[in-house]
């Protein structure tokens, strides 16, 4: 088997997951911040800032799932049953927050769909954090199939990860609003962003200490020599970026806080990759163990190389088309 194909695919899926987290992160974040909006006009402004994009953003989730199915069917076949309940809860939560966009627009009383939007976004985020956290801790596999129970995912660490992700997406959402809106909505978002930035830093510290303390393989990866010489900049850069973001928020910058939040996410992601590579299903299945046959990976890779640039092209187009700030009272459709 060509050893590099699974690596390329791991990179493709890695990119899809990053894109998903960054893009749907900010629009789930809007939902997380929804309860803090004071009136319908503010809420309209918030949903309007993401309305043209949310469907495209969520499609990265489909690409991540389909990509896993395409390139690593055996990992897909272990991960999905292992996280049966959180995955389905996440999907249902996404159902409610997704239709809430259209339904709150056509219904007379918006309250019910406002709640659905906020609760759906928050719950979906929490479920994603739980899945991620529990995956890092490792899941039991026997004969290539998941061999644990339905509630194995409910560990303290996973729950902490769930809460951390809520803070993280909340921060993405808040800095997005700082960038895309004006008036009271932007003001409030700026204040929230500061609180959330602190929460995100705290979570990053907790998770970065917790994993090496409980997972020897993670500790070995980071703290053995010579790895440590190469890896120490990761936390340092993270601290610098967080500091800059704080400064930029204080300085009332519009765009840079959002960019800094994205950088924070990328750094956190990098940390996760360093801790876990080359495992897809820690601690037993690597990218090579679970890969699809080369014929399938190559066939799909050709399509990806051809289509993904086009896809990115028109995604850039739509972000460009709806550039600029959303004003109070601008129409929906």
């Amino acid at each position, binding site marked *: 088997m060509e050893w590099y194909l699974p690596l390329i695919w791991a990179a493709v899926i890695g990119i899809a997951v990053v894109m998903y987290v960054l893009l749907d992160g900010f629009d789930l974040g809007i939902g997380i911040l929804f309860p803090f909006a004071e009136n319908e006009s503010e809420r309209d402004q918030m949903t309007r800032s993401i*309305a*043209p*994009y949310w*469907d*495209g953003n*969520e*499609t990265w*989730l*489909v*690409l991540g*799932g*389909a990509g*896993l*199915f*395409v*390139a690593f*069917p*055996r990992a*897909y*076949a*272990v991960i*999905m*049953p292992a996280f*049966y*309940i959180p*995955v*389905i809860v996440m*999907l*249902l939560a*996404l*159902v409610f927050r*997704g*239709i809430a*966009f259209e*339904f709150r627009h*056509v*219904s007379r009383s918006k309250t019910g769909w406002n709640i659905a939007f906020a609760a759906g976004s928050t719950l979906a985020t929490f479920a994603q954090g739980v899945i991620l956290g529990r995956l890092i801790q490792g899941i039991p596999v026997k004969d*290539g*199939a*998941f061999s644990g129970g*339905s509630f194995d995912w409910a560990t303290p660490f996973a729950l902490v990860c769930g809460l951390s992700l809520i803070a993280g997406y909340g921060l993405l959402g808040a800095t997005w609003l700082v960038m895309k809106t004006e008036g009271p909505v932007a003001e409030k978002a700026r204040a929230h962003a500061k609180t959330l930035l602190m929460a995100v830093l705290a979570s990053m510290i907790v998770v970065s200490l917790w994993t090496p303390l409980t997972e020897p393989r993670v500790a070995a990866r980071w703290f053995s020599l010579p790895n440590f010489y190469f890896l120490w900049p990761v936390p340092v850069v993270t601290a610098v970026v967080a500091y800059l973001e704080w400064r930029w928020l204080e300085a009332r910058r519009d765009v840079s806080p959002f960019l800094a939040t994205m950088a924070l996410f990328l750094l956190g992601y990098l940390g996760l990759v360093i801790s876990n590579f080359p495992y897809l299903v820690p601690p037993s299945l690597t990218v090579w163990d679970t890969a*699809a*046959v080369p*014929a*399938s990976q190559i*066939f*799909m890779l050709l*399509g*990806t190389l051809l*289509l993904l640039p086009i*896809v990115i092209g*028109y*995604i850039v*187009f*739509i972000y460009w*088309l*709806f550039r600029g700030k959303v004003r109070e009272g601008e*129409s*929906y*459709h």
Partner: protein
Amino acid sequence: MDFDPVLLARLQFAFTIIFHIIFPSFTIGLSAYLATLGVLWLRSGNDRYQHLMRFWTRIFAVSFAMGVVSGIVLSYQIGTNWSRFSVTAGNVLGPLLGYEVLAAFFLEATFLGVLLFGFNRVPPWLYVMSAAVVATGTAISAFWILSANSWMQTPTGHEMRDGIAYPADWLKIIFNPSFPYRFAHMLNAAYLTTGFVVLAVGARYLVAGRHIEEGRTMLRMAIGLTAVLAPLQLVIGDQHGLNTLEHQPIKVAAMEAHWDGNKPGDFHIFAWPDETAGVNHFELSIPKAASLVLTHRMNGLFPGLNSVPASDRPPVKIVFFAFRIMLAIGFFMIAAALFGAFLWWRGTLFETRWYLRVMAHSWWIGFVGVISGWIVTECGRQPWIVHGILRTADATSPVPGATIAGTLALFVLAYGVVFWFGIYYINRLIAQGPRQVAAETGHFSPSPISAAQDAGREALQR
């Protein structure tokens, strides 16, 4: 309590996928209708088309959102419910679904943004083009997913090693024997479904005496379309059945409740198949008609259910009745569309109130046709999940029955809420009518619309 995980996984999947297919059946056709209206608007400069387009776009937005969220659920359920199927068939089916995401979903989702929110931001031609792009995206999406499903019905182009399917020839996999028929039949079904919804809404306005102009336009467009497509569906369906007879003869036997392959098949208008005794009760049949359709000879023979052991037969009653429902709807559609065309030719279409009344109440028939068609196809494939390769019972995930039952209950509850609200809102939009809806969406500044009108006029002068 003891739950059968296989049965529950099937029930859950059947429930979520039936819920999902309701929306594609409508959005595939509706996006094409929007694009048509847009082109008519650009070419004629007539604002009626623009109002109609914006009115249906609102309804489209609500339906599309429900299609998207229920589709995302499905793409993960293949893993949660059918993990062993994913391992066995993943090498082959994975790329087909991957191509669907890359070639179709991103396209739809992105240009949907332009269609729903771009009216004030883009020139009219780009606005109309994005409707056409969304329509194309939905058709491409249908292409890939139906290719995947058809491969599960009639697998070719792969080789089996250690119980796992490996791809050998991608062209044979994608264009497997049942795919062209299934693609044509389903796409046509989607256009018919939308056609009958538009027809019903137009008829509803005329009966109520409101929005007369718009109602007439809808009625004419819908009758023009369905009068061609409904008869065509009979032809495609017939060819589809002949192809199924070649590759999945037992499915056809179940569709016809044909037990004894040594005798020519009658066409049962009604029967009560008895699966333990292997006979039908209360038959009301046209002698030898099934043989005539399937073999083109009065005394032609085709395999019966008794030729395989009971464990290899699909559930006969479900397949048999679902097939009859689809046929009934197919023939009703032909009759309704051709009669409408006849009235139109006579010049009495808008005055024949009983016809309009009936049509106003027939908006749902396409959906029921699509669902019963899929039940025929999917239940008829049983006991296989991939025909001849993997049995459904061997395809499930190692998840306990109670967990599946719990989440199934959640799905029923959640989808129930979403569905009823969706129907309620769509119905309200329809009740408000095209002009009001188009006006409501237009807090737009005067300039883009007059620009649009100018463009329309220019197009007219040319």
